[in-house]
């Protein structure tokens, strides 16, 4: 058992993640070919506009279930909304933000774009803390609109007219996943501008613009879209009680900053915070690059139902980051 644990701790998790992402991508993009439907309440962007998707992103059913008159919230439709949310909550509890880092097809595409940039030797961008804190708020605004607009399409508030139906489902209309994910199955039907009404034209053009910004953004900034993702907020709600966790032992942290430097989404707290145990922040994608980059033994630990799965070790750090043949300057014991 100890040998297995040592093997895992010394392994290259990023490589495992790379292959796992490919497998998940195939499953969620082409799963329909094999009649696979994992769930219709998935906490990842498995886009239903891709006709052969192996599951459905929860945001579409959520918007769909909110697209009712207020009185119907107290009927069976309300129960369906609750049921859907409970299924989503259950799935979120199991893998927490691991859905983002390991499974989300849109996240995988961003990682592939990042890899392309790296091969081209173009440097990536880093936001300063002020910009980062401002950008973080966008996903809350998007989530708020995602909930409010479908209700507003079906109901009038304070005497105002109902919102035009052309903007429904609002988030899907501007989601880059709707435009980009079907492309992987050869479906270009989502790249269009609807000229039937001004609203339709505005919202479909906005979707195209967001998709364009997504591609360029992901090229210069790692996990660019994840900062604005409303799903991240929904997943964050359950992360504190989720089975899959990332814990930090602040007493062992030397604040070297390695974890922050490798973080794709730039979470500063991973390096600075030595008081809190739970390190899953709202933007965390649980890629565990921080654990890989941490040279302090058991400072950062990934656990599932309190069973440690992967932990930071000095040996693991040196194996992953120091070229073969290089020996540490002193004769310290590595583990």
């Amino acid at each position, binding site marked *: 058992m100890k040998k297995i644990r040592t093997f895992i701790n010394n392994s290259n998790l990023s490589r495992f993640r790379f292959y796992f992402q490919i497998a998940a991508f195939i499953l969620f993009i082409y799963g329909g070919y094999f009649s696979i439907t994992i769930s219709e309440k998935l906490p990842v962007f498995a886009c239903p506009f891709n006709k052969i998707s192996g599951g459905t992103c929860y945001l579409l059913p959520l918007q769909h279930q909110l697209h009712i008159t207020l009185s119907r919230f107290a009927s069976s439709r309300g129960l369906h909304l609750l049921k859907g949310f409970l299924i989503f909550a259950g799935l979120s509890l199991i893998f927490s933000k691991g859905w983002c880092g390991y499974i989300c097809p849109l996240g995988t595409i961003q990682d592939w774009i990042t890899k392309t940039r790296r091969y081209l030797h173009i440097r990536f961008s880093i936001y300063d803390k002020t910009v980062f804190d401002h950008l973080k708020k966008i996903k809350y605004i998007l989530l708020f609109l995602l909930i409010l607009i479908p209700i507003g399409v079906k109901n009038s508030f304070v005497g105002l007219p109902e919102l035009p139906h052309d903007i429904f489902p609002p988030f899907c209309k501007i989601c880059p996943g709707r*435009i980009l994910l079907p492309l992987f199955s050869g479906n270009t039907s989502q790249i269009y501008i609807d000229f039937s009404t001004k609203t339709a034209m505005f919202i479909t053009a906005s979707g195209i613009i967001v998709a364009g910004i997504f591609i360029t953004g992901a090229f210069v900034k790692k996990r660019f879209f994840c900062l604005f993702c409303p799903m991240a907020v929904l997943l964050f709600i359950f992360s504190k009680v989720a089975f899959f966790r990332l814990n930090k032992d602040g007493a062992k942290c030397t604040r070297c900053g390695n974890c922050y430097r490798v973080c794709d989404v730039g979470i500063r707290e991973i390096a600075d915070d030595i008081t809190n145990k739970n390190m899953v922040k709202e933007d965390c994608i649980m890629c565990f690059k921080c654990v890989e980059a941490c040279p302090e033994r058991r400072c950062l630990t990934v656990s599932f139902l309190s069973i440690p799965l992967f932990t930071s070790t000095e040996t693991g750090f040196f194996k992953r980051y120091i070229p073969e043949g290089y020996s540490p300057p002193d004769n310290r014991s590595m583990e």
Partner: protein
Amino acid sequence: MRSKAIFSAVIFFILFLSEAPALENIWFSATPPDKISKKIHYGMRGQACIKDEDGREKKILWIRSGNFPVESPYADHSSRKKPVFFILSPDKKLIKGELSHGLPGYFLTFEGNLEGFYNLYLIEKFVKKEILNIITAKAEVISHKCSKGHGGMKKKMAPKILKHAICFEILRKRIPGEDFHTFLSSGDKATFKVFFNGTPLKDSKITFKTQKGWSKSLGTDINGEAVFQIIGDYYPDWKTLNQKKIHTFLITAEHTIKKTGIYKGIAYKQIHYTGTLKGCYIPSKTLYSSSMYGFFLLIFIIITTAVFIYFHRTRRKKLFQEYTFNEKD
């Protein structure tokens, strides 16, 4: 005088050549007559639904007689006998429904809670000019609630025939990738298959009629199939364009066999089968949307943002400057 005679002869010849007035078909329609439409609400694919006295939701279809979707009046219940009907549920079981008559004509209501397509059949038989006419009206009514999930869609969507009760039937084959939410739209190619006693029928005349009366007739191939491209016959002013406007199309197929017999005391020498199938379609997306504009906008945004980032980075690049300090100072 002579020219008048020629003119009369030509008219007579034309009248002689022209077909006899077509037999009035019966078909299902989801469009309610105005008088009771306030009670109606619409579900998937524009399917009319009504709530009964117990608050149970039922699907409702009206029976119309005529050969074109728009012009056909609602079937008059006073001048015809109550027809026989069947309802085949998605799990291929015959279920109960209610055929009532109100103002105007007949309507069929049934509870459709299972996921998938319900097949509705209505059969009318009568002898006219020594021909036994058997008209079978068919409609496929979809029942789906997203809350019930989308699993096993292919099976639930599969078209089916009622082999043992219906001898002449039209079936619409599903278009590739068709799901619960797919609407046929103008431009799509729809394939129809004609069955006679449960086997595909070759060389049967099959006619496709659009909402506005455009029609095309074909003969079925060796597999009993005929393919029609649904034409776009909806070109409104830009301001009144309704991209979700549901149009009805009507498919009719005919087949005649020579067989003598007696039906309700009247002898006949031939049996003429007519099948009708109601369907619906919406205007094609190409009527009001452009993929090319979308594609160019996408490329434009990618290039613009890339150029912006490039110049932003160039502007922020600080040239290397070496400062030397003279220790003596």
